[in-house]
């Protein structure tokens, strides 16, 4: 337990989640022209006019770009959650107080 008052594994998961969300928002909010610069074929289509195939390629590329992050984050988050749930828990302060009152 250190830092923000949470276990290091959980802190890592939170950091990864925030970073992933930031990347996703940056990709989604970027202009089509800016996004197309990452793909030579999309940039060519965009410069040649409104070809529906450009939109199709962009949609597919963004989908395929996001999926590995989504999949790894989901699977890793599930394993971390299972790990966190199964750890031995210390009794809370309320339980300790109740036990102390019962003993006295």
């Amino acid at each position: 337990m250190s830092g923000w008052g949470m276990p290091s594994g959980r802190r890592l998961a939170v950091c990864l989640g925030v970073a992933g969300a930031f990347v996703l928002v940056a990709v989604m909010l970027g202009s089509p022209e800016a996004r197309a610069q990452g793909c030579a074929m999309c940039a060519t289509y965009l410069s040649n006019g409104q070809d529906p195939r450009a939109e199709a390629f962009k949609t597919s590329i963004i989908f395929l770009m996001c999926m590995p992050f989504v999949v790894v984050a989901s699977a890793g988050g599930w394993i971390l959650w299972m790990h966190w749930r199964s750890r031995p828990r210390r009794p809370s302060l309320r339980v300790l107080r109740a036990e102390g009152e019962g003993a006295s």
Partner: protein
Amino acid sequence: MADHPTAAIHRLQPIPIRREPVRRSKEPMPPAAPPVSNARIAVVTLLVAETMFFSGLIGAYLVFRVGTPVWPPLNLPHLPLAVTWVNTLVLMTSGVTMVGAVRAARRDDQRALRRGLAITALLGVTFLAVQGSEWLRLIHHGLTISAGMYGATFYVLIGTHAAHVLGAVVWLTLILIWARRGHFTGGRDGAVEACAIYWVFVCALWLALFALVYQ
């Protein structure tokens, strides 16, 4: 009258000291159970690979669908929506019965486990049968795999999912046979859970494909 100065010491109660039990045996300590079982990690790894495989197929489908001005093409039949809605309901119900079977296995209720597995397998077979009959009708109306990108992407995407449902039904049938032989008594329900995770994945995947392909 005041007590003797040592009386307070005599009134003190001894503090109980909790001692760890002394291990007499020389055998090594049994290893603690891992928080996530190996079977679960194996199934999750398989599902990650499956998800990426279907992502590739969906990516290809998006290229053809979004890039085509008229979808579906005018000379080809529309997909049967009403029957597929009912079929979706059948598959979702099978997911619910599968979860019920896992809960029955956890509380060691063998009868409910066998019943849940049997109903789930039956619903899965029903889903496949309805899909097959609809495919026959579509082929009869001219929507074949060689009828253009519309037919090719439809049969590849939905056919791959149907193959996965078929594999899940075979797996479920094996689990049902083992459950009838009493293999999952006394908390040994790891195989049932692994099969259930895969089945729920197949159901969730169908929801995504149904929303994508049939709408």
